[in-house]
């Protein structure tokens, strides 16, 4: 199960505008030749392959990516992400902060109707909040709502949110799926949301209406003609569940699907480079919102020494990993913040590939080859041996471990590799912090707040600071960054955090992978942007002459 964290993390970004994929200026590739396109037309069916079935149709209760992709079409939030990763109004017309960042007021649009014709108003927003914080609601992501002190609706089109302390991600929180009060109230009260009809026959306000879910087979959505931002051009959207990656690729080659969210490196670079494929599909490439890293266990006395961590960074050639593992389809990572977002900076310390320097640093830290066997020892003659662990079934991570093993051997460190099934890996090694080095990936949201990953208070077994990193300066910056709603102040905090992390190296940030989606060439209106390609899905169309599925 590669990248489970990454998937789950898509939640907040997805809601807010299908923006799973991040970007960098001038690094977006791929594109459509729009010259021969006819005028926009309604109709046709858009078929998307999905490797897993959806978990349910109230996406707030699920954590898998498929559910959130489908949910993002059926439901709307008060705000969403635009193509440049900025928050923009959606169901809300506008929002305002009070000076102290404690009060947030949304003005709602008046022209929104639920798919069953029922008018939408502020009661639904208040209800959604109440449903999310209800202890009986098994929603995996409710942190943002628990920080809210109160929500009220002074009139049917105004929502007033009050916080105890300033919360930087407040607006982002309200990109959540707004749920229909008139259909769900009784189920929320009874704590049976999962069993409600809404979870199998959802009613939302989004651009697409639910038509059918055949478990394990497909989900069918149809365009909502009354959508408040205008009817989407593509009339039907079908998510086909195809549990085999190989089959998805063959379906793609046979033109059985119109969109695949990400090809593998080898598929992108080699297996799709022939004329017929290039004619049938457009390929795109831009940085995805996750990074792959090698994490140290800072509880291990050897890695508690920063010089050892820096020596490891010098010993590893990131570009070699990118070329060898991703066929060049990734970019060197400098820190945990998503490149292309306002908080990102690449002006941080870098540790270039330099084995000599690595050896020097290790010697400084007391590691020398005392018996001439090619392996370094400490003063007592104990050899430097470590185990790199990662989850089974992720070929990329396995290859990283192998290349790093070779590179570390060159500076005199003996490395073993252990691959463990995902659930066991997390439960037996990562959570109890019984590891030396791990190769893993982590998703980055659009907001830079990473309090839970780096703050010293988050080092418990069920918490996310898995390396056990503790730095008082970073703690203070994280707290400050999270409690400000003024972006210009926050920029400073997060730049400083990135500088410190790059020096401290609680983990070696390896690379940001590229997302490699393909879209059928008959679909027009696709225009890559920093947030990916799906942000303007409602404007995608197929000219009448090229429409393939006439029915529906």
């Amino acid at each position, binding site marked *: 199960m590669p990248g489970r*964290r990454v*998937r*789950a*993390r898509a*939640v*907040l970004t997805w809601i807010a505008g299908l923006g799973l994929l991040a970007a960098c200026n001038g690094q977006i590739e791929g594109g459509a030749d729009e010259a021969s396109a006819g005028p926009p037309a309604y109709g046709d069916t858009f*078929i998307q392959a999905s490797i897993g*079935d959806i*978990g*349910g149709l109230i996406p707030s*209760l*699920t*954590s898998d990516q498929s559910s959130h992709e489908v949910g993002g079409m059926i439901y709307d939030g008060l705000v969403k992400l635009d193509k440049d990763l900025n928050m923009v109004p959606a169901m809300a017309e506008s929002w305002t902060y009070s000076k102290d960042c404690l009060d947030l007021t949304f003005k709602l649009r008046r022209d929104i109707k639920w798919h069953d014709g029922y008018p939408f108003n502020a009661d639904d927003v208040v209800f959604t909040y109440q449903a999310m914080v209800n*202890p*009986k609601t*098994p*929603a*995996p*992501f*409710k*942190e*943002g709502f*628990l920080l809210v002190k109160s929500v009220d609706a002074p009139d049917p089109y105004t929502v007033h949110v009050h916080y105890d302390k300033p919360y930087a991600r407040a607006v982002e929180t309200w990109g959540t799926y707004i749920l229909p009060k008139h259909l769900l109230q009784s189920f929320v009260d009874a704590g049976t949301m*999962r*069993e409600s009809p809404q*979870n*199998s026959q959802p009613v939302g306000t989004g651009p697409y209406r639910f038509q059918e879910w*055949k*478990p*394990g*087979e*497909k989900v069918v959505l149809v365009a909502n003609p009354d959508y408040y931002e205008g009817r989407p051009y593509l009339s039907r959207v*079908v998510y*086909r*569940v*195809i*549990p*085999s990656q*190989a*089959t998805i690729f*063959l*379906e793609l*080659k*046979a033109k*059985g699907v119109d969109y695949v969210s990400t090809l593998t490196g080898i598929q992108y670079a080699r297996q799709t480079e022939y004329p017929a494929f290039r004619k049938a599909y457009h390929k795109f490439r831009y940085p995805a919102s996750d990074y792959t890293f090698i994490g140290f266990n800072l509880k291990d006395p050897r890695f508690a020494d920063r010089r050892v961590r820096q020596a490891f960074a010098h010993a590893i050639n990131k570009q070699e990993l990118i070329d060898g593992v991703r066929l060049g389809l990734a970019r060197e990572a400098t820190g945990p913040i998503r490149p292309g977002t306002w908080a990102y900076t690449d002006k941080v310390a870098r540790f270039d590939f330099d084995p000599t320097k690595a050896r020097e640093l290790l010697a400084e830290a007391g590691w020398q080859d005392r018996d001439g066997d090619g392996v370094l020892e400490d003063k007592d003659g104990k050899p430097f041996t470590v185990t790199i662990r990662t989850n089974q079934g992720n070929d990329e991570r396995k290859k990283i471990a192998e290349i790093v093993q070779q590179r570390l051997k060159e500076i005199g460190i003996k490395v073993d590799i252990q691959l463990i*099934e*995902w*659930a*066991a890996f*997390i*439960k*037996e090694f990562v959570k109890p912090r019984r590891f030396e080095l791990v190769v893993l990936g982590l*998703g980055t949201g659009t907001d830079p707040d*990473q309090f*839970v990953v780096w703050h010293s208070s988050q080092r418990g077994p*069920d918490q*996310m600071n898995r390396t056990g990193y503790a730095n008082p300066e970073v703690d203070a910056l994280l707290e400050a960054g999270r409690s400000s709603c003024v972006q210009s102040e926050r920029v400073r905090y997060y730049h400083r955090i990135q500088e410190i992390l790059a020096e401290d190296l609680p983990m070696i940030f390896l690379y940001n992978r590229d997302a490699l989606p393909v879209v059928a060439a008959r679909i027009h209106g696709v225009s890559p942007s920093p947030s990916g390609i799906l942000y303007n899905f409602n404007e995608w169309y197929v000219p009448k002459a090229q429409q393939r*599925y006439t*029915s*529906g």
Partner: protein
Amino acid sequence: MALFALRRLLLSIPLLIGITFVSYVVIGLAPGGPLDFLTPEDPNASPEVKERLIKEFGLDKPIHVQYWQWLKRAVRLDFGRSFLPDGRPVSAKIAERLPVTLFLNLIELAIIVGLAVPIGVLSATRQYSLYDKITTIFVFVGFATPDFWLALLLMILFGVQLGWLPISGLRSLNWEYLSFWRQQWDFFAHLVLPIVVATFGGLAGFSRYMRQSMLEVVRQDYVQTARAKGLSERAVISKHALRNALLPVVTILALALPGLIGGSVIIESIFAIPGMGQLMVQSVFSRDYPVVMGNLVIVASLTLVANLVADITYALVDPRIRFGGRRGRA
């Protein structure tokens, strides 16, 4: 006879309970639990939700208590609801998957039997002939070919290169809009590849059994006798030999019954067929205990029933078994 069947039936009840208990414990011991998949490895996931779900699912109780709770409901045929966010009843989940798997497997079995019997009989009666050698090679190739590999090759050839057959799924996406006969044709076309792949492997084993069984029978005295009294070779083979040779094969058939329900994970995954095999694997991977147990009870009961049926058929045919318990062997 009825007594024999009844006794066997009663004996299988404790056996079934034993199977479910062991399964329950084993799946519970597997690393990770349903919560690891419901509350993701994510910075923003809330730990309270986890505790709440653990209570709701009853996972905070000791495993024997959990099992007892499950058993009490299971005897009333209530298998509970799935742990997944859809929260649907286990019986509904199984009911929507079962028909496809059953249908596919019945067709496969029919084809396998239809082809394997003549292949086996012919290669037995012409042992060491060219035909026998060719089928032997064919059979071993079939046995050794991994079905996912064969499936991909056939998909590339017929789906991508030639474009004659659909690659995956059971129906085209515009199925509802086709005429009745086009619908049937569409469905049939989707079935061709999965069935070919599934039968290819099964055919190999089955025709070997048939050959073996036939070879043993032709050497028996009564076949010699039949020949000696001047019957034509055709009559000897079809009337005397084949009937007896089919006996062990019938047993194997009965034992294949649970497999009909279980479905093939590989075939279903690769051809994107939403059947029982996929359901079972997904529920194991996501540690969806109620669905795993629901599936297991069905498959285990069928295995027991199949065993019973096999024994009863034997008893019907062979009096030595029927009365063996009381009179001792003759």
